[in-house]
C-alpha cells in the first residue's frame, strides 16, 4: 500500500524473520493455514467490517508483511472471542496469530493509545478497567466504596507490581514503573 497511494502490495517486502518472530510469539501453526476462509466468515471483526480481519491477517502474517500488519490497527479490534480457534479446520489457532502480531507490535510501540492506558491502569490500580465515579455506584448498591481487590490492599498491590515488573512490561511500558 505504498508507492504514493498506489494500491499494490509489494511481496518483496515480505520478511521471513517476521514470520519466525510470530511463530515464536505463539502463532506456532501459522504456516499451515490453507486460507480456507472459515475464520473470516465467523470473525466479528470481519462481520463488523474491519479492513484487516482474521483471514487476511493470517495470510499477511504468513507472507511476512510486517509493515502492513503493524501499521494497521485491526488486530487491536479482535474480540478474543476464540470463535476462530474453535472452528479452524487446520487448528491454526488464528487468535494466537492476532496475539502474536500484537506482541510484535507492542515491542515497536505500534499499538493504539488505549492499550497503554489499560496497562497503566493495571499497573497502578491492579485493574485495567478503572472508570471514574465507581465509589458512588458502589455506595448506591450498599457495597463498600472500594472492592476487596488489590485496590484495597497496598501490600498486595505492591507485590503485584513487583510481579508485573518481572515481565516484558518492564521493557516496553512507556510509563514509569515505580
Amino acid at each position, binding site marked *: 500500500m505504498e508507492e504514493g497511494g498506489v494500491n499494490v502490495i509489494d511481496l518483496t517486502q515480505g520478511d521471513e524473520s517476521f514470520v519466525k518472530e510470530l511463530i515464536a510469539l505463539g502463532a506456532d501453526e501459522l504456516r499451515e493455514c490453507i486460507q480456507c476462509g472459515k475464520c473470516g466468515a465467523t470473525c466479528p471483526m470481519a462481520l463488523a467490517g474491519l479492513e484487516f480481519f482474521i483471514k487476511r491477517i493470517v495470510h499477511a502474517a504468513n507472507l511476512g508483511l510486517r509493515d502492513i500488519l503493524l501499521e494497521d490497527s485491526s488486530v487491536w479490534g479482535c474480540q478474543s472471542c*476464540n470463535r476462530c480457534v474453535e472452528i479452524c479446520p487446520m487448528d491454526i489457532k488464528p487468535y494466537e496469530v492476532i496475539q502474536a502480531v500484537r506482541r510484535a507490535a507492542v515491542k515497536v510501540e505500534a499499538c493504539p493509545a488505549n492499550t497503554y492506558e489499560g496497562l497503566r491502569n493495571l499497573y497502578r490500580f491492579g485493574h485495567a478497567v478503572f472508570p471514574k465515579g465507581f465509589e458512588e455506584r458502589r455506595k448506591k448498591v450498599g457495597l463498600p466504596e472500594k472492592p476487596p481487590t488489590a485496590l484495597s490492599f497496598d501490600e498486595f498491590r505492591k507485590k503485584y507490581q513487583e510481579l508485573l515488573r518481572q515481565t516484558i512490561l518492564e521493557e516496553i511500558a512507556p510509563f514509569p514503573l515505580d
Partner: protein
Amino acid sequence: MQKIGIFLGCNIPFNRPDIEYSMRFLLKELGVEIVELEGATCCPAYGTMPSLGLLEWAVASAWNLSIAEEKGVDMLTGCGSCYGVQNEANYYLKKHPEIKEQVDKILAKVGRKYDGTVKVWNVINFIYEKIGLDTLKQKIKYNLNGLKCAVQTGCHNLWPSKAFPSGEDNTFFPKRLREICEIMGGVAPHYSTITDCCGMGALRSNAPEKSLALFKKKLDVIKEELDPDLAVIGCSSCLLQFDAGQALLIEQKKLNYKIPALHLAQLTAIALGAEVEKATAMASIPLNGVITKIKGGN
C-alpha cells in the same frame, strides 16, 4: 456448606456493582459461603498482559488463581473475559511446562505459588452444575411467570471450549442459560443468532460505530424472531452492550424499540427476593415491565 471465592474483575465492581450485589445476594440465598479473594486484580484483560506475551498472560492470571488456591476455594466470576482469560491461563500452564516453570519462579519472587488446582466458574455453569436446577427451582421466591427471555451466553463463556473444564454439549447451540431461565418459570426459546457476537470488547473500544452496528444486527434478529420481554445475559461485558450500548443506539436514533437486559446473576437474585433497586441500580433501559411481571405473579 459450599464455599466459593468471588472473583470480581473490573467491570463488575466499578461499572456494574449491581451485578456484584446480585452475585453476593444469590450465593447467600443459595447457601454458598462467599470467600473474599483479597488482593485479586484484573484477570488480566485480553488487551493487556495477554497481548504482551504468553508468559505475561499466565503469570498475571496465576497471581489471581494463587490467591484462591491459598484459600482453598474455586473461583466464581460474572464476567466472560475473566472466565475465558483465567481458564485459558490454567490451560496453558498445564500445556506448557516451560511456561509454568517461569511462572513459578516469578511467583516465588513475590512470595506466592500456584499448583494449578483452582477451577474457574461462570454464573451459568455454577448454577447449572454446583447448585442444580431443582434446588434453584425450590429456592426462588418469585416465578418468572412466562417472561419471554432472549438469552446471550457470551463468547468467552463458550470458546475456546477445549480450555474450559466444563460447559455446553454443543457450544454453537447453547442450552444451559435457556434451561435456567425456564426452570425459574420463564420461556427462553432458541433464536438463530444466539451465538453471535454482541460487539462489546476490543471492537467497541477501537471501532465503536462498527461495534454498535454489529450489535444492532443481532438485536434486530432477536426482536424479529422472539420479540422478548427481557434479554438475559451470561457475561457482564455483553450486558454493558445490551444495556448501555442499546441506550446509546436509542439516543442516536438508530433503534426504535427497547429490550430490557439483565445479567443472569441479577435475574436470579431478583427471583430469590433481592432488593430490586439495588439489583438493577445501574440499568439504563427501564425494567419496570419486567419487574411487574415477575413480582405480579406471586
